[in-house]
């Protein structure tokens, strides 16, 4: 058997999967694909089985999410370039702005995923291969276009990062940041509203937790409870 024949049998082995495919040249890939097409005849002997109802809908949703993620990633790249140029917000905020500033794409994702329209900007995206983060936009209750704080949690390290924006508290008061695990129960104070980006370590935050900003007397909450929460946001999963 000549070398060309040997190579063709190598291709047949790769087509069956008995040896790893490895790095193939274009010619090797073509030879392997030709064998795969031949072996496909074997499948004809297997009786058909109806897939479960509803699976096609899941496939459509998956495709739409994939395509939307591509759009969002492109938008994110544009925003990142803008951020580099302007240097206004931190990296976390820029990533999140990509979500906030593409309302059409967001609506399509939510619709495809069968989610109710978001009133707090909460979005779950778990289709990317990139790093997973929990994020929350803490927005004003009366004006959702006003974001007071961006929260990011790295689930691997438990690190929680707060990125404040330039919102100002009412006169003679200060803002205080609160974490409410699971969105109910007793809020825990994370301290006064930071002046710049800060990282708080080892906070056990999970998707579904809420964060709020309250207006407190100067010096902070006198009794350890939020007096007048004005901003709220729910922690959700984002995968890039």
């Amino acid at each position: 058997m000549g070398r060309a024949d040997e190579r063709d049998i190598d291709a047949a082995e790769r087509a069956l999967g008995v040896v790893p495919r490895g790095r193939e040249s274009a010619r090797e890939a073509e030879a392997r694909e030709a064998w795969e097409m031949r072996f496909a005849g074997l499948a004809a002997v297997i009786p058909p089985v109806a897939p479960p109802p509803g699976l096609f809908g899941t496939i459509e949703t998956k495709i739409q999410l994939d395509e939307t993620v591509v759009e969002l990633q492109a938008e994110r790249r544009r925003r990142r370039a803008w951020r580099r140029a302007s240097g206004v917000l931190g990296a976390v905020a820029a990533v999140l702005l990509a979500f906030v500033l593409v309302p059409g794409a967001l609506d399509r994702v939510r619709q495809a995923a069968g989610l109710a329209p978001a009133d707090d900007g909460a979005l779950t995206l778990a289709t990317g291969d990139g790093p997973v983060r929990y994020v929350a936009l803490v927005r004003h209750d009366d004006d959702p276009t006003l974001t007071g704080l961006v929260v990011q949690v790295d689930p691997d390290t438990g690190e929680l990062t707060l990125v404040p924006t330039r919102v100002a508290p009412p006169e003679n008061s200060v803002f205080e940041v609160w974490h409410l695990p699971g969105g109910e129960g007793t809020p825990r104070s994370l301290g006064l509203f930071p002046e710049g980006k800060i990282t708080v370590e080892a906070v056990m935050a999970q998707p579904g937790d809420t964060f709020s900003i309250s207006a407190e007397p100067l010096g902070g909450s006198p009794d350890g409870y939020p007096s007048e929460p004005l901003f709220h946001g729910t922690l959700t999963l984002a995968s890039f």
Partner: protein
Amino acid sequence: MADGRSFPDRAPGRAGSDTERLPRSDRAGAGGGGVDAAITAHLLAIAGGNRRSFAALYEKASPKLFGLILRITRDRGTAEDALQDTFVHIWQNAGRFDPARGPAMAWITVIARNRAVDLVRKRGRSTAGSEVGPEPLDAMADPSAAADGGLDVLALARCLGQLDDRGQELVLLAYFEGWTREELAQRIDAPVNSVKTWLRRGLIALRACLEGENDGAR
């Protein structure tokens, strides 16, 4: 199926229309059979972003593909995931289908089989029965199977039938179980080198026989 959902046609740049393209009857290797002609037409339309054709292809081909995937994975959850991956891949790669290089049904079967094997390898194998009985070859000898999607089943069955028992068993186990050479050796309790020799000998004989079949058909 797709009706009433918000799944859009493909984005601008690869945008298609809802007008189904008909298969080009003058294309070589388009299968010739009615089933494969329809699948070919659907794939060509899907390449243009036609979601109605995508739904029609799913309707027509998913039971065959799901049967094969279930046979390989032996686990419904894994099989459903593999079928999803298969159709997502079809939607995204339909433009790479070339009717001149083989039947459309074979092209989508390759995708389904590879996805199933990939997932089984990634997730581990179900311990449910893993013997390939004699039924595959018997079933392949059934002429009605030959009309299934334009696949050249009869020639493959005849040629596999001419292999010795060992060669036949190894090809079928590799295809339907997705086992590597080392796994095959372990399963049939034989040295890896022997498995390599038997399998390659079988493949050489299979190729010679299939080439003879092709020549005879010309």
